[in-house]
C-alpha cells in the first residue's frame, strides 16, 4: 500500500534531522504533534549559561548551533557545534534543567523544537529514543573535551581551519555569512588575530573571506592546515554512529 500524503509529509519532516530520522516512524508520529518548526536568525541566543532549558532544538540541514562556555571575566569560547546530526539542550534528558552552556545560532535556518517537559515524558515511554539521544550527548562531551585541549595547544590558524571544516560538514551552503566579530567570538580571540589568520589562508588560496562572506576554495589544503582534533572528533562520531 502506498503511504498516504500525510504520512509522507511526517516522514519528510523527520528527515530534516538525522536523530529524528532514526526514530521509528510510528513512534515519531506520536511525537510529531509536540514538535514546533522555528526559524533561527544568525547570532540568536537560544539559551544562556544558567538558564532553565525550556526547549530541545533539533537543527535542520544547513542550520548550525554553537555551544559556548563563558567565564566571569566576560571571556567566552565555542566548545562544540551541533547541526542536523544532533540537538541542543540536553539537561532535561539528564534529569536537570539548567544549561551549562550558552547556545546560539551560528548558521541561521530552520529547526524543530520541543518543550523540555514533553520530551521528558516522551523518553520515559520510549527508552530507545532516550538511548539514541544520550548517545549523542556522549558525542558532544567528546567534542567539548577535545576542543578544550585544542583551544589550549593549537594555533589560531589550525583552529580556524578546523572550525571551517566542521562548518562545511554541516551545511550545503558554498558561502557562509560570517563577520570577523562573530568568528573572533567563536575562537575566543580578538578580531585582528582573526583578520590576520584569515588573510594568511586567503593568500594561500585555501579560503576566500570577503565582506563578511566566508567560503572554502581548497578543502584538501584546509584539512592539512587543520589540527588533528578535526579527525579525532570525526572518528569518535563515527564510532558512536552519529555520522
Amino acid at each position, binding site marked *: 500500500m502506498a503511504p498516504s500524503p500525510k504520512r509522507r509529509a511526517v516522514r519528510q519532516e523527520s528527515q530534516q534531522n538525522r536523530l529524528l530520522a532514526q526514530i521509528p516512524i510510528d513512534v515519531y508520529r506520536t511525537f510529531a504533534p509536540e514538535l514546533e518548526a522555528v526559524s533561527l536568525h544568525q547570532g540568536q541566543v537560544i539559551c544562556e549559561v544558567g538558564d532553565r532549558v525550556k526547549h530541545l532544538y533539533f537543527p535542520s540541514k544547513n542550520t548550525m548551533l554553537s555551544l559556548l562556555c563563558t567565564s566571569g571575566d566576560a571571556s567566552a569560547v565555542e566548545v562544540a557545534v551541533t547541526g542536523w546530526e544532533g540537538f541542543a539542550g540536553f539537561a532535561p534528558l539528564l534529569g536537570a534543567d539548567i544549561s551549562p*552552556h550558552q547556545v546560539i545560532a551560528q548558521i541561521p535556518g530552520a529547526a524543530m523544537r520541543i518543550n523540555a517537559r514533553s520530551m521528558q515524558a516522551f523518553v520515559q515511554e520510549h527508552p530507545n529514543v532516550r538511548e539514541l539521544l544520550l548517545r549523542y550527548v556522549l558525542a558532544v*562531551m567528546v567534542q567539548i573535551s577535545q576542543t578544550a585541549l585544542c583551544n589550549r595547544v593549537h594555533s589560531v590558524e589550525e583552529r580556524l581551519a578546523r572550525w571551517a571544516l566542521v562548518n562545511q560538514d554541516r551545511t550545503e551552503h558554498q558561502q557562509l555569512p560570517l563577520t570577523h566579530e562573530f568568528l573572533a567570538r567563536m575562537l575566543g580571540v580578538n578580531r585582528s588575530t582573526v583578520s590576520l589568520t584569515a588573510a594568511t589562508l586567503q593568500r594561500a588560496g585555501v579560503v576566500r573571506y570577503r565582506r563578511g562572506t566566508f567560503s572554502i576554495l581548497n578543502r584538501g589544503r584546509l584539512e592539512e592546515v587543520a589540527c588533528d582534533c578535526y579527525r579525532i572528533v570525526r572518528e569518535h562520531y563515527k564510532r558512536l554512529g552519529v555520522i
Partner: protein
Amino acid sequence: MKSTASPFQNLVLASLSREAYLRFSPHLEMVSLRAGDVLSEPGLIADNAYFVNSGMISVLAVLRDGDSLEVGIIGREGLVDINMLLGCRTSLNRVIVQVDATALRIKSSVLVRLYNDSSAQFRASGQRYIQYRISQISQSAICSHAHGIEERLARWLLMTADTVNSERFDLTHEFLSQMLGARRSSVSIAAGVLSEAGIITYRRGHIQILKRRSLEELACECYTILKDEHAALSRS
C-alpha cells in the same frame, strides 16, 4: 576514617537501595590502583568499570603527539566511566590513576545491563553524576583557554587535595604538565612561584599545601564553581 572495605564510600553505590545493592554486590571486586595505571584509552573497549572509593583518577583528552589536558577528575563521588551509563563501552578518553586509589571493579558489560535494569532512583543519581562531569568538561574548556598557568595550577592543587582529602600528595612535574596541557618548564616555573611564596612545598614529587587560603585566592573562579557543584552532587 572509614574502612576502605565499605562499598558505600562510593557515593554512586551509596545511592542504591538495599535490594539493588544485592544485585550489584556479587559482581563487585575490591581492587587497589596505583598512580600511573592507565584504565582506558580512547577508542578501545573498556572491559571493566570502577566505582572509586578513595584516591583520584584523571580523565584526559589526548593527541597523538603526546599533548594532553585533564578534562575530568574522578573521586569517590563517581565512577570510571560515564560512557557506560550512556550506553557505550568504548572509551572516549584516556583515564589514568593520578593518586593511588581503591575501587570496586565490575565488568563493564554487567554494569551496562544492571544500570539499564536499575531503579529510577539509581538512574537519577547516575544522571546527576553525568551532569556534573559535563560541568567539569565545560569548565576545563573555558579555564584552559582563559586562565593563566598559575591560577590553573592553584585550582588543580586544591581540587586534588579535596578529592584525596589530604593536603599532601605525590605528583611528578611530568604528570602536572599532562594535566594542565602545559610544558614541563612552565609548570616548574609556576610551582616555583608558589613554593617561594611559602604557599606549597614541592620536593622530589611530594607536594604539601601550607597556606590553603592563599592558594584559594590565587586559583581561578573555576575552583569555586566546581566545588559548589560537587557539594550539590554529594548532598543529593
